[in-house]
């Protein structure tokens, strides 16, 4: 036993040392059989090079890139290049790839050659780069940084970065009023559309000037797929929408009234127009149907032949439109498909099954899975890992309409109002609470009606999602996953003195009575002078950790900004604050 433990320790030390030395090749298996080590890789993005001969897959959890030989449909190499990779694009020169690492806040430029994949250089970008978009001409790369609410625009002169990385610079930095994720260039690369990572906002940026042109709201949230149709006539957005007018009961879930899974077809002309009606000349498709929900559309792919594919992450399927016919064909793939890529000519579609650690290869003409490529054996799952599988599983809900992810994107909040029964009544839609950091901030639900997280989890499955009674182990695992979610980061203050002044005001006004550090909340409920539609007036104070990452405030979203909390609603103060005091308080709160 002791001997085994020593061996285990040595292995850990060895791996840690290798990791500390920086990028390394686990194996360069080109032309040779590759033995992949057990791991939880979690593929989230793909790119093709050499006319589709090589498929590159970035793994979020393992921080590695896998090289897949598409002729053989097998993994030939794995390169550990980062800590938590989020996206990957292939540059137009056909030799370079750019990967984003959210953990290090870096972009990694890689060169592909016969010798394999080699790192060229790294570039620091604002924290948590989660998505990349390359302009049609290949000269500009957009980087969305989640928690810093920024889009960086990088000029790639001559269409690629050279070996030294000298032409690898951030040219523009655009601040957004929301956390961005998906992006798409429009109008011959003169406009960049940036989608909200959690809510439903859509902004348009002038990439040349680095100027924010518009911010408009779509009726929806979880904007996960963004693509331009092959003919350029449509901007496709795969997303979800929840109606605050509906109830989280059997009937409204069954008929798709509470939560819809949509593919929206917007006119690029109206999207690009700063003041245009975003929905003018648009179409809305409803994915799934009664008895056959389509939870969590996570990616959309516009094929060169005009067809469209949508990954349904919550129900492990891909929808593929039919040539010359109405509707979609539903193709079962691996667990939680989140990324799609098509070969040249759209003959094959690659599907990254994030929680299966596999790639499904679809024959786009025949509409079937040709093969599933394993990305290596999976390591043993801990309770939180098993909980993660359940968190993203739409089959927990009635007919597969939604998963936990549907209202809590990546554990955060959709910022939407949902009329569930947590408060013991319908008719009082309430803002979806963020789960990030919530594992240690009970009681749960707005009115603090759930004394333990497990009870809340069980209630959410059986009532809000109208699913079947979960096993105790499933509840425990889901709770473990929620407890593993860390609170979102605050924002470093631009004016440290103002933030410090805000901290003093925070204490002076007694805010810490309900929001004391370090969790900035307390157990219990308080009447703070506002009530819901049913007259419930006592609320559990939400934690203020990561409060800057929320969009609208209070149980019914009545305050649109943090400043409104104090200026319009005077929470919880009896006197009117000066503009300076409000600015200072907001500055402080944003650091939490």
């Amino acid at each position: 036993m002791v001997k085994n433990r020593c061996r285990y320790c040595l292995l850990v030390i060895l791996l840690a040392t290798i990791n500390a030395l920086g990028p390394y090749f686990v194996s360069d298996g080109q032309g040779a059989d590759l033995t992949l080590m057990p791991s939880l890789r979690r593929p989230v993005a793909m790119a093709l090079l050499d006319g589709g001969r090589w498929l590159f897959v970035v793994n979020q959890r393992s921080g590695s890139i896998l090289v897949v030989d598409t002729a053989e449909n097998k993994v030939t190499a794995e390169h550990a290049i980062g800590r938590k990779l989020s996206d990957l694009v292939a540059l137009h020169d056909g030799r370079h790839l750019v990967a984003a690492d959210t953990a290090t806040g870096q972009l990694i430029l890689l060169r592909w050659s016969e010798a394999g994949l080699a790192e060229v250089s790294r570039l620091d970008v604002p924290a948590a780069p989660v998505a990349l978009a390359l302009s049609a001409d290949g000269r500009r790369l957009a980087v969305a940084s989640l928690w810093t609410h920024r889009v960086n625009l990088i000029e790639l002169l001559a269409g690629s970065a050279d070996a030294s990385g000298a032409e690898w610079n951030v040219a523009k930095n655009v601040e957004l009023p929301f956390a961005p994720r998906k992006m798409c260039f429009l109008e011959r690369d003169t406009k960049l559309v940036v989608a909200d990572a959690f809510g439903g906002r859509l902004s348009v940026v002038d990439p040349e000037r680095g100027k924010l042109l518009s911010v408009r709201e779509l009726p929806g949230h979880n904007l996960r797929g963004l693509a331009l149709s092959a003919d350029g006539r449509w901007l496709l957005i795969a997303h979800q929408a929840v109606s605050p007018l509906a109830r989280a009961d059997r009937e409204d879930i069954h008929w798709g009234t509470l939560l819809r899974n949509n593919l929206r077809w917007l006119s690029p002309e109206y999207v690009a127009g700063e003041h245009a009606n975003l929905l003018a000349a648009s179409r809305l498709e409803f994915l799934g149907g009664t008895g056959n929900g389509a939870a969590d559309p996570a990616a959309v792919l516009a094929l060169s032949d005009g067809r469209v594919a949508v990954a349904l992450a919550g129900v492990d399927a891909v929808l593929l439109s039919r040539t010359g016919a109405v509707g979609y064909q539903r193709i079962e793939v691996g667990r939680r498909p989140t990324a799609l890529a098509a070969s040249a000519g759209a003959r094959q579609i690659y599907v990254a099954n994030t929680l299966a650690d596999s790639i499904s290869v679809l024959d786009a003409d025949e509409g079937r899975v040709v093969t599933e490529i394993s990305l290596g054996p999976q390591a043993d799952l801990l309770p939180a890992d098993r909980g993660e599988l359940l968190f993203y599983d739409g089959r927990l809900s009635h007919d597969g309409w939604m998963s936990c992810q549907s209202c809590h994107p990546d554990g955060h909040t959709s910022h939407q109002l949902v009329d569930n029964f947590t408060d013991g009544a319908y008719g009082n839609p309430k803002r979806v609470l963020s789960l990030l950091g919530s594992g240690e901030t009970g009681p749960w639900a707005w009115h603090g009606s759930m004394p333990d997280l497990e009870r809340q989890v069980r209630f959410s499955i059986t009532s809000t999602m109208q699913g079947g009674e979960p096993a105790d182990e499933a509840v425990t695992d889901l709770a473990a996953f929620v407890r593993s979610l860390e609170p979102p980061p605050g924002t470093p203050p631009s004016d440290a003195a103002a933030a410090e002044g805000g901290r003093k005001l925070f204490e002076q006004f007694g805010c810490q009575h309900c929001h004391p550090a370090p969790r900035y909340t307390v157990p219990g409920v308080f009447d703070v002078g506002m009530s819901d539609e049913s007259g419930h007036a006592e609320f559990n104070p939400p934690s203020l950790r990561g409060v800057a990452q929320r969009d609208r405030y209070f149980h019914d979203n009545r305050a649109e900004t943090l400043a409104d909390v104090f200026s319009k609603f005077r929470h919880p103060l009896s006197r009117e604050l000066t503009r300076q005091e409000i600015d200072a308080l907001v500055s402080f709160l944003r650091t939490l």
Partner: protein
Amino acid sequence: MRTWSRFLWMFLVLALAAPISLGEELDDEPQPTLLTGHETDFARRMFKVTEIVLDKHVEPPTRQEMLLCGFTALYGGSLSDDLRRAVSATATEDDFIDTLLHFWPRRDKSRRPGSRAAFFYGMGEAVILEIDGTTTEGLRITDVIGRLRGAEGTTVTLRVAPDGNGESRLVTLTRSVVPRQTVIGWRQLRSETWDPVVEGDIPVGYLKISEIGGSAVSELREYEAELLARQVDALILDLRRADGRELRHAITLADALLDGGQAGVIRSREGTRSVRLDRDCLFRDWRMAVLVDNHTNGYAEWVAGLLQLHREAIVVGESTSGGWRFVMTPIELPGDWGVIGLATAVLEREKIPTNRDEHPLRTIDENPTQWATVGFASLLSRMTGPNRIAPNGLHSVTPDVSFPSLIDGPHDESSPARRHSDVVRRAVEVSTSLKITRSKSQIDRAQ
């Protein structure tokens, strides 16, 4: 307003009293009754119900009014002065119970007919005598339904008497989901399958909503996809004889058909709440005609008015009655007394403009030639102006194009089917003649 409350109350009181008073011959003059335990329970129950009404009803009558309504319903208005005085003097719970017991008609349980649940069996109507071996004698309808319902795939065995009498037999049924279409198309192709297109030079979609229920929007979505695939971009939405029981379904339907905005307010005793709709809508930018008649009731009327007001839909048909505006809510009674529906709120569509035209568009259709010569831009301008509120009240809908309904009447010489076809054809004419050329400012309006 009060009239409606009273009217509703008469039904309520009758409904509550029915299990006891059915089948009795009522005397002209109320007679004192014996105070049995059963009757005292009944009186206390009635008092409790009046308490709930006073607490929950949006425009509650007084307790005396409720008593009076009940007695008026029972005695047809021939109430004695004694009774009237007693009702007026009712102040406490004891007063209420004394009055009720004193003046309530005599009950003779032996004369009360046994009630049984009906069962539609073949072409006739049968009576259910037993459910899984339990007699239905004395069961309330809610209990019967509760015993008939169950998980999909399970069975229930009924003893039924095919003609209500005579020999009974056992029938075993397997429970299953019963699909129920609330939206149908123009022509039935086969069971539950409809063609939603009225063919012609310009194909027009035709969808009839028979009931605004929970599935209506889901059904409309499926039809929209089919119509889009068939290149249809004009729709006739038939709301004639449409009805809806639940406000939330009506709101869901309005939300699905309108591009955002405020659909009205719900006024209850707790306050006023706006109904705000999201910006997604079905049949976006389609030309739309809405068929209504004086049987377009309740929430269907509300939806029709919203489509006319906010979606530029042309309403064809007859003025709706405008008679319904209450939001009914099921309220549980204490113990096992069941549930009653109470008007707990009022649904209001829009505020009435002060200078509205009493007959905004009605004259247009009086002369077909005139209708034909009216420019559509002119029509639209009149429709979108401040005169869109129906002349006969806040809640009724006045058609833009008046056309007789299919309801038979002394003047009606054609068959219902023919008249149905006529009104739809007229709607087709209207919907295909619409050329909604939205101005740039409309399209470019800031959100």
